[in-house]
């Protein structure tokens, strides 16, 4: 029997070795397997050209984070494949290249839609996950995915999803800082890069479809009123938000500034809507429970251990978590509790 210290030492070394080799996404073995195939680099180049227009070789190499020689090889291959051509010393997409790029973008945005609607992944992860996955979705898979998701037009960031024929329409939008104090708008697009800014937007609870009004606007700050609270944004963060002004008939949406979270014990309210932030199964579940526009909802009791609050909806008592209550917009009602 070996000494215990020896055993522990051997065990610890094995753990460290396993971590170094197999840690998700950073381990040596894992990274080697996923190392960029040529095809992946080609597709990334196509996307880069689509988003940024004509590029020089150096710019391409920088974007792909590869050496100049490697970039040259990629670009050469793409030229031979007639995906790109030289337009006055810079590279630009041919029509085949454009179609291919749109397919990749379609796959990316459809996958983001899937992540948002059908999984529980954190919003900050959607873009990175889609970046990885977009290269392995075939055209048929993309079509199936689109059918299953109900042929969505926009991804969760508000970007348009190209159709299977490659049709795409970029919407005309305003950047949030272009609005003035007192304006009302709804968010139609959130820029997902740089990741740090996007993460901050997520942390602030901002989402596509959010309805807001500008409360105050100064040099260094933008203050919004939305979902019953105030949100303060720095200019660089606000610049990543694109909005559409609210139509006159939509102004009623602003009325419901309060959410269920602010309902006091014993009070009753009327449900106005479930926020756009609530997706997929969660949303359907709430509607099945009877939380639909027009329903009367009443505060029943709080639970122990600071978790749930019970509400009476259409004759049943249901327990909701705090995150859920912040996603239900209400209008105070004058009804007497029954």
């Amino acid at each position, binding site marked *: 029997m070996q000494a215990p210290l020896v*055993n*522990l030492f051997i065990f610890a070394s094995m753990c460290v070795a396993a971590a170094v080799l197999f840690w998700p996404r950073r381990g040596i073995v894992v990274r080697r397997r996923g190392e960029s195939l040529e095809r992946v680099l080609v597709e990334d180049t196509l996307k880069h050209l689509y988003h940024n227009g004509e590029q020089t070789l150096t710019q391409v190499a920088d974007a792909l984070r590869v050496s100049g020689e490697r970039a040259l090889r990629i670009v050469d291959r793409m030229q031979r494949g007639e995906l790109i051509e030289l337009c006055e010393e810079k590279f630009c997409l041919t029509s085949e290249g454009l179609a291919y790029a749109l397919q990749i973008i379609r796959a990316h945005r459809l996958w983001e839609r899937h992540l948002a609607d059908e999984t529980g992944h954190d919003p900050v992860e959607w873009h990175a996950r889609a970046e990885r996955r977009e290269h392995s979705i075939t055209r048929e898979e993309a079509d199936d995915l689109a059918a299953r998701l109900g*042929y969505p037009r926009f991804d969760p960031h508000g970007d348009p999803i190209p159709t299977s024929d490659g049709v795409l329409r970029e919407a005309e939008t305003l950047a949030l800082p272009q609005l003035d104090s007192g304006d009302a708008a709804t968010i139609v697009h959130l820029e997902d890069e740089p990741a740090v800014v996007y993460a901050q937007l997520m942390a602030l609870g901002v989402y596509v479809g959010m309805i807001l009004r500008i409360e105050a606007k100064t040099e260094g700050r933008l203050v919004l009123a939305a979902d019953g609270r105030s949100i303060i944004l720095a200019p660089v963060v606000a610049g990543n938000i694109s909005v559409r002004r609210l*139509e006159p008939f939509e102004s009623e949406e602003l009325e419901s500034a309060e959410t269920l979270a602010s309902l006091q014990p014993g009070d009753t309210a009327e449900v106005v809507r479930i926020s*756009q932030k609530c997706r*997929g199964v969660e949303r359907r579940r709430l509607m099945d429970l009877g939380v639909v526009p027009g329903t009367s909802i009443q505060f029943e*009791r709080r639970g*122990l251990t600071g978790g749930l609050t019970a509400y009476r909806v259409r004759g049943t008592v249901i*327990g909701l*978590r705090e995150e859920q209550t912040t996603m239900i917009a209400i209008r105070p009602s004058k009804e007497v509790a029954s």
Partner: protein
Amino acid sequence: MSECPPSNCEGCPAHHAGNLKKLGVNMDQFDYVVALAGNPNTGKSTVFNAITGLRQHTGNWPGKTVARAEGGFALGESRYKLVDLPGTYSLLSTTVDEEVARNFILFARPDVTVVVVDANHLERNLNLVLQVLEITDRAVVCLNLVDEAKRHGRTVDHRRLARDLGVPVVPTVARSNTGIDELLNTVAGVASGEIVGKPKRNAAVRGQGRRAIEEMTELIESALPGLSNARWVAMRLLDGDRRLEEAIHSGELVELAGQSASGEVASGAVVGTDAIAMTTAARSIVESSRALRWDLGVGFQDAVTESMYARAARIADRAVSLADTPRRFDLDRVVDNLVTSRWLGFPIMLGILGVIFWLTIAGANVPSGMLATLLIGKVHPMLLAFGAQLHFPWWLSGLLIDGMYLATAWVVSVMLPPMAIFFPLFTILEDFGYLARVAFNLDGMFKRSGAHGKQALTMSMGFGCNAAGVVATRIIDSRRERLIAIITNNFALCNGRWPTQILIATIFIGGLVPAQLAGFVSASAVVGIAVLGVGLTFAVSWFLSRTMLRGEPTSFSLELPPYRPPRFWRTVYTSLIDRTIFVLWRAIMFAVPAGAAIWLAGNINIGGVSIAQHLIGAFDPFGLLLGLNGVILLAYLVAIPANEIVIPTLLMLTVMNAGIGGVGAGSGVMFELESVADTASILQAGGWTVLTGVNLMLFSLLHNPCSTTIYTIWKETRSRRWTIVASLLPLVMGFLVCFLVAQVWRLIIG
């Protein structure tokens, strides 16, 4: 046929029949076709059977694997064909069922569509009704299960409902044939045109999409003037409905427009070049819809669903009245105030659970003893004698009686009594409604680990039996939380492991302290292990929700039902059948082969030594590394079917391995001893130390689930991946923990 002038085609019944034939409906002997739609679980098939009796046959929808039933009935002079559509929650065609149902109503244009609705779940069911009414006005709502609704205190005003919907509503109890005649008469009335439906179609969809819908509707109405449900078609096109786009391109929709036009206007059927013009206009409609879709904005689909739900809810509210008296609400409130109160909530909970556990342990002792005496003390020798009479060779009687029968008898006698007490008690609490309040109270703790408050209940059930705990996770509808509850259920110390824990604690831990304290100390040790299990449940839940289950969608819901006086005997009966017998049966299924394996391992000799001893020798080095030994590892291997047989198997193997004579019932035969002291001396003779005892207690908590549980996990998740994770994760943890404890122990204590 060839003599009919082409201009009359659309109006001719034979043309319509031709369409129906394409959809697989043969109209040769019938005058009218009636479609039967409805949500699943509304008693639709009962209605179908009540109407058609035996005059029905089943098959498939053409080109699909969806089953279909068809039948007929006659009323007055007319014969009706009844087509049973697949049960669906909506017609938005995301599944094959919905597509089939929707296509039939739209393209086959049945003379009447009957929608079966469950009076107990009106809001939910009305969604389908509203969607059907968007497509056709010739509908009848069959309000089924009104007797059950009445029992629960709900009365549905069907006249009010009919007014709000704009179509006839007929209450029925299909099970007892009540209301069926009235239903058929109403159907006949609608088919013949006597009764005219005027459904009120949904007006408002909030938001950006409204303009797009209006524009689209106008386009369709001008291109296809005869179409009676233009708005619905507009909304479906804007939703990207491929089938409808196809129908437009192929001209099917144009035909429909022509048909409905000829139905309403006596003359002026669509003909020749007009038809071609309509088709061209129709094609441009599809292009426009695709362009308009970009203007719909992000929340369109949600807004549509929401407004439909809201409308269904409003209509249901007006039609349903609840008989619950205010007094009933107040009583519930009083109890809830007590049970969720800050000071009394937890004590009440711990108290009730404590009582249940105590009743189970104390109450099961005597019956277990009696069963053991009967099955093992009396029947076993009887069987051996019987075998001897039939001149069984030693190996046959050994295999069948000492192996298979004995293992089964052991499992039954140890498993049955505690379960027969625990399950009914638990189920009574559940029926009463108290358990929902427990989940309500504890959710905060579980949420921090990424789990659901209802896991408290499945965990408690797991203390009775892990397999039953896994089945109980059905109450958690969100997949992620359900998987977490299933995988961590193993850390609840189930009934079958308590004897092992108690015995080992008494011998090895109680033996360390003076006799007066021994009982208290060993009991605390067992409780400590159980509490460790609870702690691990939270830790592993947290771990799973951050790593392996990260992307699984999650949704929370918890309903607090009104308190219901439990129906005592009914509960006892159903819990015995549903839970006790169910688990017992599965355990027996696994115990029989295990018993055979144990006996064989102990009795087949290779090279002069039994297989068991070979295995023990092979496992020993690894076992010692873990602070256990080869005997324990082998015992746990063969005792996979049930934790209850670990102790008897351990004793049998120890005796065999250490060559202790004069004890036991022969090689390969499990046994137990009455006296704890005797058991202790056997184990010590086998080389067991305090470390072995402690690690055995830990390993017993942390090893893989028993085979009954593994099988149940597979049946519940239907996923090989998760079954493997659930089986191996605890085992790996067990190895790790035992290894670390053993090294540290030897380091410090030596």
